[in-house]
């Protein structure tokens, strides 16, 4: 960039004198900067002229009054108003205390009604669950009894068979002896079949 040149004032007093003179007051000192003078706009020539277009112009140029939104009373559309932000006029600011007996009693009755219903439902549910549990227990007991009875029956039948066999042995030894042997064989074979084996390769 080229350095800016500084102006040197050769005669300071001469310059002052010029500023005091009348001519200087008329013409401002120019610093080399020429500002474009704006024309101070008075009424244009057309305003003075009478007629319809002049009136329209004057109406247009008259300063319009601006109304605030409150003054207009326009309903606020498409705006989110959070709950609790807009309060109805005349309502108390801040916290609402509960110190009188009536309002406290009201709250207490509401709370107690809630609690009672809760406890009642809990008790009812517990009773129902207990009934279900009891029914299941009874069912399991009856099943167990039946199983036990069947087991006893088979045991008895086996005992009776053995007794009969013993008594039969004493009567005819040859036939029954063969049968008993067969029985034993068959039972032993069944037992052998019934026995499960687990083998690992």
């Amino acid at each position, binding site marked *: 960039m080229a350095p800016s040149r500084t102006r040197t004032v050769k005669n300071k007093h001469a310059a002052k004198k010029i500023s005091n003179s009348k001519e200087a007051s008329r013409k401002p000192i120019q610093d080399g900067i020429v500002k474009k003078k704006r024309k101070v706009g008075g009424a244009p020539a057309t305003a003075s002229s009478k007629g319809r277009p002049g009136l329209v112009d004057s109406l247009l140029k008259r300063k319009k009054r601006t109304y605030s939104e409150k003054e207009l009373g326009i309903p606020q559309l498409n705006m989110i108003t959070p709950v609790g932000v807009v309060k109805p006029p005349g309502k108390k600011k801040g916290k609402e205390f*509960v110190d009188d*007996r009536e309002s406290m009693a009201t709250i207490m009755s509401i709370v107690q009604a809630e609690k009672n219903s809760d406890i009642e439902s809990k008790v009812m549910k517990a009773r129902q669950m207990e009934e279900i549990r009891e029914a299941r227990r009874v069912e399991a007991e009856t099943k167990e009894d039946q199983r036990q009875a069947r087991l006893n029956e088979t045991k008895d039948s086996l005992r009776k068979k053995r007794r009969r066999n013993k008594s039969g042995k004493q009567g005819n030894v040859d036939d029954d002896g063969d049968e008993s042997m067969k029985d034993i064989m068959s039972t032993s074979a069944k037992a052998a079949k019934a026995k499960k084996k687990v083998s690992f390769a």
Partner: protein
Amino acid sequence: MRPLTKGETHILFTKLANYTGTSLNSLISPLDNAPGSDRFVFRLHKDRVFYVLLSIANLATSVSRDKLLSLGVCLGKFTKSGKFRLHITSLPILAEHARYKVWVKPNGEMPFLYGGNIVKAHVGRTMADCPEHQGVVVFNMNNTPLGFGVTARSTTETKHLDPTGIVCFRQADCGEYLRDEDALFASG
């Protein structure tokens, strides 16, 4: 120190109703029927709720907020999340209006007072038809209140429980007067 707001009152009463029955109404009833008679009120100081006579609460307004430590009976405190926690200091009021009670045998007193839960072997007596997770006040066999807790099982389920099974979860016990001596009365 200020009265409770509507929400705070609701939270407080809900908590108290866990342990007390319908007699809780007598908490807010005036001492006598004369007009302008003294009555008990709830006052919030810092985060603690006090149950105090109105006349005493009015007198306490002459004490500066930072100098006032306690007045009346401290029921408990509001936590930062807005819940209410009952303190052991509220035991006399809860014991008076208790809905469900559990009595512990002498051999179960010390384990409870040291902060343990109540096991079935230590239960001396209990009330019938007590549901699960219900607030109960714990007494010893001489009817002295020891603390309060929450039932772990309903009364019917407790019958089938083994002796070491927990019947009641401890919430507060009188041992806290010694254990939490520093924190119990120092607020804020």
